[in-house]
């Protein structure tokens, strides 16, 4: 079965140029102009028209195999697909279903779970969010305390998740919950799927430093989910979660955000008339190289994923380099903006308006989420460089 999605053709059979032209024509013809390069994460109400169109076209899951309803793109084609989205400034949506739940169910799920959950993800009828972090389980995720006990045919969940991105746009959440309190940390955790409209769930948005409400707290008060929503074995959720962490690190490590930062930097430099200033040019060149080389090393890891090879702890370096490069760019944007560097919102500069601080506010949390960069360095030091504990 193909989970209700037919592809028009075998995209991998096209030449790279032909495929790029096809994707470019699609986004240029149909993506709403007012949504290009948004300075913040858009809400589902704002960008759903585009993603429902992509879903109807069968383009919502470019990286999924065709047998599961995806486009089945080979790594090189997938990179082109993503580059063209980036080039046109297409806003990301709450894509955890596509990026995380789908790949997890393909690997750890049952056939019944795949049949139940993949089609509505592909149709954008069900939107997922990720319930990992808790107030007292951030970097030390395995110390999480949200618990689930099996009662009859249901798990009963109690506890709290936090920093849950766009939970207020989601219909479903996947959570890590403690199912065996006697076991040691990682050993007693399970991976569960549940509906956010289930009785006992409360979602409360958190206002961030940029003034946006992109993440939320999610509270669980005796929330029930059927036992059939357990993914993988009972108490084996850590292994499931860890496979996603590697995936998340490669996703956070994509050159997308730094490339967007470079575009803003160039716009600010033009508006300030410093493009040809030799000091600026040298600093720009360094950052351009940092981003181009991020692309080189991202390509190395993406090719491993494409060949079906597991990602080792080395992938942490990608997250570090991507996020810290983005922060260096954001810092140079503010410095280049001069007096405009302290102005909020879209700032009139030169002939246009630029949201000078948007990259800064996007970049700051990037070294915190997805496992802080300090944690990534610990992982590399211990597991890759074999330094003593």
């Amino acid at each position: 079965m193909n989970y209700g999605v037919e592809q028009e053709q075998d995209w991998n059979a096209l030449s790279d140029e032909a495929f790029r032209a096809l994707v470019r024509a699609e986004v240029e013809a149909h993506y709403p102009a007012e949504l290009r390069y948004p300075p913040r994460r858009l809400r589902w109400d704002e960008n759903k028209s585009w993603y429902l169109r992509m879903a109807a076209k069968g383009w919502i899951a470019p990286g999924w195999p065709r047998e599961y309803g995806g486009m089945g793109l080979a790594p090189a084609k997938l990179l082109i697909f993503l580059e063209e989205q980036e080039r046109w400034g297409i806003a990301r949506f709450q894509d955890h279903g596509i990026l995380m739940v789908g790949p997890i169910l393909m690997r750890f799920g049952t056939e019944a779970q795949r049949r139940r959950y993949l089609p509505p993800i592909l149709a954008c009828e069900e939107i997922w969010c990720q319930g990992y972090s808790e107030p007292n389980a951030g970097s030390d995720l395995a110390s999480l305390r949200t618990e689930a006990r099996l009662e009859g045919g249901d798990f009963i969940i109690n506890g709290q998740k936090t920093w849950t991105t766009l939970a207020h746009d989601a219909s479903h959440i996947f959570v890590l919950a403690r199912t065996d309190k006697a076991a040691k940390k990682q050993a007693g955790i399970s991976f569960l799927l549940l509906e956010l409209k289930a009785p006992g769930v409360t979602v409360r948005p958190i206002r961030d430093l940029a003034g946006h409400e992109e993440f939320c707290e999610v509270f669980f008060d005796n929330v029930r989910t059927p036992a059939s929503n357990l993914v993988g074995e009972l108490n084996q959720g850590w292994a499931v979660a860890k496979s996603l962490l590697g995936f998340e690190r490669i996703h956070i490590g994509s050159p997308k955000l730094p490339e967007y930062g470079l575009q803003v930097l160039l716009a600010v430099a033009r508006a300030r008339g410093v493009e040809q200033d030799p000091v600026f040019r040298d600093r720009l060149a360094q950052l351009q190289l940092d981003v181009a080389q991020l692309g080189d090393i991202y390509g190395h890891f993406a090719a491993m994923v494409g060949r079906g090879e597991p990602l080792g702890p080395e992938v942490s370096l990608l997250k570090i380099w991507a996020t810290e490069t983005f922060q260096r760019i954001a810092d140079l944007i503010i410095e280049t903006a001069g007096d405009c560097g302290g102005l909020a919102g879209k700032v009139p500069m030169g002939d246009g308006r630029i949201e000078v601080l948007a990259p800064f506010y996007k970049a700051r949390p990037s070294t915190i989420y997805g496992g802080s960069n300090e944690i990534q360095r610990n992982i590399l030091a211990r597991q890759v460089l074999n330094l003593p504990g």
Partner: protein
Amino acid sequence: MSDDTLRMLRDSAADFATLDAARVRRLRGADPGFERSVWQEMAGMGWLGVLIPEDLGGLGLDLRAAAIIAEQLGRALYPEPYGASAVAATLALLHGDHPDLKQRLLPQLAAGEIVASLAWQDERGGLDLAQCAVAAREHGGALVLDGSSRFVATPGADAFIVAARGARGLELHWVERGAAGLACEPEMRADGSAGARLRFDAVAAAAGTRVASSASAHSALQLALDHATLAASAELLGLMDCALEMTLAYLRTRVQFGKPIGSNQALQHRAVDMYIQKELTRATLAAALAAVADPGCTPERRASAASSAKARASQAALAICKEALQMHGAIGYTDEYDLGLYLNRALVLSAWLGNAGAHRSRYAALSQAA
């Protein structure tokens, strides 16, 4: 070029390239600063001819093969002029337009019978080929070279391929070491090897020894330099990899305050940053080599890829070696300890063929033009 070929090459190069620190120290300040016997061994393994076509005595492989060899030689700090002769000079000759010279000289280069070195920069150095301070002019019915060239990589070479401004533009000339009117002034480099300034006082040149006429000289020289820049980046990669390994081993075993110093998070995180720089160099070099191996690669794309790799490799090698020195403490600052050999070689290779800043500028200029 198959993956198997590359793997075999990597294995044999790795076997060959173990650090002989006593030899490296002995050759500091020596003339020449390398050994003909080792050069012959390299020729015996086919390494000097990797880029030379098979019908001229070489292996007919591309730069990926040369980079593998260069990386291993970098690990073991070989002072033999692999990049300068087997890559730079060899490619300038190969891509020139003098068939007879190629027929005669390329087999000798592949066999290790001669060592050659490019002379193309002026007093100031830099990457601009137009900045050439040697002139080829008519003198009494014959062609002679006048002027000077600095930063010549291998003063002990048997011959130099000299870039000169002729009546119709840049030309490349084959000038043998003992040529009348040629003077060689060595300059000591940080690692104890010698570079040189060559002075030309009416040195005889002729159509018969013109490696490249103005029709091909510029493109041949640029191609040779871009390839040599990538080979130098590979050498730097091997070098930094080894310096990092030495440092990690030291962090694991050096005990202070009752525990290995590598258990301190402050040092662990800095070691990770060294590792990231090395891995960036590796990824960028691999991407650049793949780009250059593509038959559709334009000279601009090639130059941009070479600059990206060399900018990172130069910066990363110096950063890693300096951190390695700090983490070793005082022992790292002694001449007796091998780490200093790596730092001093990093200084030389980082500066050679353009340092990080020079390649950053060239990369920026190429990006802006594109």
